């Protein structure tokens, strides 16, 4: 099995953003520290190895993703759907990661995404790999992989 790479996570994140939300994002090799509220979504997976994926972003980026997914203008409705949009985005990212990293022929399963909002993301204790992208608006989205060792 290949080692997970930043390039793989960056490609999956960029592709899923483009296909799910019609958002074009650039890789951000050195993301800045989070300021203000931070939205974190996490989803567990099980395959030949278990682990989890975590998506970290700002509520503003979440609202931007929601507006694009739903084809609505920025505003109250987009803000209200931001958390659910990031949750769904991570769900699709999870499926894309499993089929690309472990392969479509390998049995694998995703859990249910869970989201939380805080002033800083909880530290990921076993972070294996992470990738960040920046949206045209300047907002960042970070995808972190926690791959369990067996």
């Amino acid at each position, binding site marked *: 099995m290949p080692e997970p790479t930043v390039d793989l996570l960056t490609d999956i994140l960029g592709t*899923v953003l483009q*296909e*799910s939300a019609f958002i074009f994002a650039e890789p951000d090799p050195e993301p800045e520290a989070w300021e203000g509220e931070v939205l974190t979504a996490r989803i567990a997976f099980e395959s030949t190895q278990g682990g989890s994926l975590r998506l970290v972003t700002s509520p503003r980026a979440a609202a931007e993703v*929601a507006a694009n*997914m*739903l*084809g609505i203008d920025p505003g109250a409705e987009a803000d209200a*759907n931001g958390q*659910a*949009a990031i*949750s*769904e985005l991570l*769900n*699709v990212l*999870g*499926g*894309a990661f*499993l*089929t690309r990293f*472990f*392969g*479509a*022929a*390998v*049995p*694998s*399963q*995703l*859990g*249910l995404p869970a989201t939380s909002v805080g002033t800083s993301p909880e530290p990921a204790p076993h972070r294996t790999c992470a990738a960040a992208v920046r949206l045209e608006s300047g907002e960042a989205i970070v995808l972190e992989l926690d791959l369990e060792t067996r």
Partner: protein
Amino acid sequence: MLVVDDSPVTRKMVRRALGLCGLEVAQVHEAGDGAEALDQLGRHHIDLVLADINMPVMNGIELVERMSSDPDLCGVPVVIVATPMSQDRVEHVLDRGARAYLAKPFRPEALRDVVVQILGTAGGSDA
């Protein structure tokens, strides 16, 4: 038509896709999980179910199994609209009775093609 997904955003996206691809659907009902879907199926005439797999309470596979074993519901086709899955999982859900699988994210045209293939019409459905 019945859209079953625990994500309200996804349910709205499917509704939007149905509109964008030119399908004339008179009514789109929604359910947040398989149990809610069975309740909706008991109360409305549904021509086609678009269901996610990964849901709390009752997942999409259990929904398909329950519908397949119910004489009143076994004729209602189910399309699984879910995140990319391993081949064995796709085969499993098709074996259990689902008619087709559409991977997220999908283009509206792909949804139209599946619906037309199953219902044989691009519009005029009552449900």
